[in-house]
């Protein structure tokens, strides 16, 4: 029985991991290429979910809502880039943190003003509503498997894009030395816009995919943002590969820690104290992991080359 429970939790960890990857990929790309720390990235994940709910109300099917919400997330991201972010690229990180914090305040409460503070829901598309039976007879919702599949597909696509295409080459070159790329005649502003828009869309996509299984509410991006920041710091800022490995690591460590911490601690102490200490340790686990990684490798596991 523990075996199948373990399998279920591993799948849950993978699902959290790929979700984190979708968010962290954009965050780490934007940081790697533009040296820009965007705290509002989590708010864009939230917007993706809200746009999906709003468009679902209009068109009435998930696929249409998905496409429209992706386009809306992209348009909104580009608008923010045009209005605010592009003026911050050459500022220091402190200014970027403050300005994007201001945008979080604005978006979280604008959403609250428009859609209300009550959580909203989005139905799972009919095709994927059921559950599958795992090896040990445990049921597992199909939609979570769809999320895992989509996340892995995006990761593979991103890897191909960055490694084998011209735009990917420019992105890698920009992450190493943006000024040199610009001197070689590449329109770096347009490259920045493309990277930023793409990152925004990935965060929006994550928000849309997760919307059917969580409640869509203001501030839902804040906590996931912190997790995504932990991911990119552990992975090495600017590195997609690092983001992927770290996202899965964090997803698994967090999920498994939460499900099994009490059982593991019970081997060492009495059941009542294990019940008390377990949750505290489980929620600290990923931060301790991050502290250890940074202590041993101050630039993360896969530091991007050239910076």
């Amino acid at each position: 029985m523990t075996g199948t429970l373990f399998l279920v939790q591993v799948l849950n960890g993978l699902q959290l991991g790929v979700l984190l990857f979708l968010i962290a990929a954009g965050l780490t790309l934007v940081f790697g290429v533009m040296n820009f720390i965007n705290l509002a990235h989590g708010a864009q994940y939230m917007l993706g979910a809200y746009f999906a709910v709003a468009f679902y109300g209009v068109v009435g099917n998930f696929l249409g809502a998905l496409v429209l919400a992706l386009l809306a997330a992209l348009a909104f991201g580009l608008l923010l880039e045009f209005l605010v972010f592009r003026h911050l690229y050459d500022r220091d990180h402190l200014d970027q943190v403050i300005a994007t914090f201001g945008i979080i305040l604005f978006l979280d409460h604008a959403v609250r003003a428009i859609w209300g503070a009550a959580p909203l829901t989005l139905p799972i598309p009919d095709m994927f509503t059921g559950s599958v039976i795992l090896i040990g007879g445990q049921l597992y919702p199909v939609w979570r498997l769809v999320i895992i599949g989509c996340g892995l597909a995006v990761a593979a696509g991103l890897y191909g894009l960055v490694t084998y295409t011209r735009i990917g080459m420019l992105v890698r070159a920009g992450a190493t030395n943006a000024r040199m790329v610009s001197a070689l005649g590449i329109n770096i502003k347009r490259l920045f816009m493309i990277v930023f828009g793409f990152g925004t869309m990935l965060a929006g996509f994550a928000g849309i995919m997760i919307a059917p299984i969580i409640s869509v509410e203001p501030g839902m991006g804040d906590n996931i943002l912190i997790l995504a920041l932990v991911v990119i710091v552990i992975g090495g800022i600017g590195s997609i590969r690092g983001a992927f490995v770290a996202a899965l690591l964090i997803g698994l460590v967090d999920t498994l820690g939460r499900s099994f911490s009490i059982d593991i601690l019970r081997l060492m102490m009495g059941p009542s104290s294990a019940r008390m200490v377990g949750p505290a340790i489980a929620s600290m686990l990923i931060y301790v992991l991050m502290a250890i990684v940074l202590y041993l490798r101050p630039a993360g596991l896969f530091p991007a080359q050239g910076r």
Partner: protein
Amino acid sequence: MTGAAALAAAGRSGLLRPRRDIVLPAAIFLIFALLPPFASLLAEQYLVDLATRVMIFAVAAVALDLLVGYGGLVSFGHAAFVGLGAYAVGILSAQGIDDALISLPVAIAVAMLFAFVTGIVCLRTKGVYFIMITLAFGQMIYFVATSLAPYGGDNGLTIAARNTVAGLALLKSDRAFYYVTLLCLLATYLFCRALVASRFGRVLRGAKENPARMVTIGFTVRSFQLVAYVIAGGLGGLSGFLLANSTEFVSPAFMSWQRSGELIVMVILGGVSTLDGAIVGAAAYLGAEEWLSRIIENWQVVFGPLLVLVVLFARGGLIGLCSRLWRWFGHA
């Protein structure tokens, strides 16, 4: 003639002008000192409550400015120290110890200890990694507080009464508590002022401008930064002690990362690397919260864009803006 010329030269060089760096803090503290009688004259008691909150957060913000403005260490986990100080008061009180002579030193010591342990790890990293790792430690302590089931967990912990001082209920009246808070802020401010002007402060600033050079000259930069980090942590603990006593309640929300963000906002909004700016910024932020929230419920919808505008167009924060306006009018 030469006398007049010398006088004019002295005027230009600023010898005869009142020194602005004394005028502003003097004005700030004078306003704080005179506020309670005025508030009771106007029958606006909420002003005293608001100013108490402002001063409590100003203690933490001044300490943060020491790190951010003078040390170049952008700590995104400063609320953790405030929260630790507050929880020290709360937990001691729940254990039946409610004298400030015990809980104040404990609050400061716990925050300093946490700053020391995490500082050793954090200061190995630089730049954006430092921002992130301080954030992570802040989140860590936040989650510890949410899982402290015996002390309220998520819901927080109500404190039965304000701390006594050597058995006397000196902090019971709001007016007395106000002046104690003012005294704490004044002490914090003067301490940080002296620290910044000392040799220690010059090393800290040197390490912000060019760490490699300071190391080459022969300073162990990291230990200076660690001492600054521990001092700022202790002052955060002091702020937490005051906060717990003022609200008679502690909760994990005191140390959420949004709180740390708000503290940075206060420092930047007022004007970084000035110490005065941290106080001005705390007043501006909490004042905006108080008054904007009366006009519209989701006041952050207005405040967020304002913050972006301050970053984009008003470098040096409110103090920088005022001194630029001052110069502009002075020379127009």
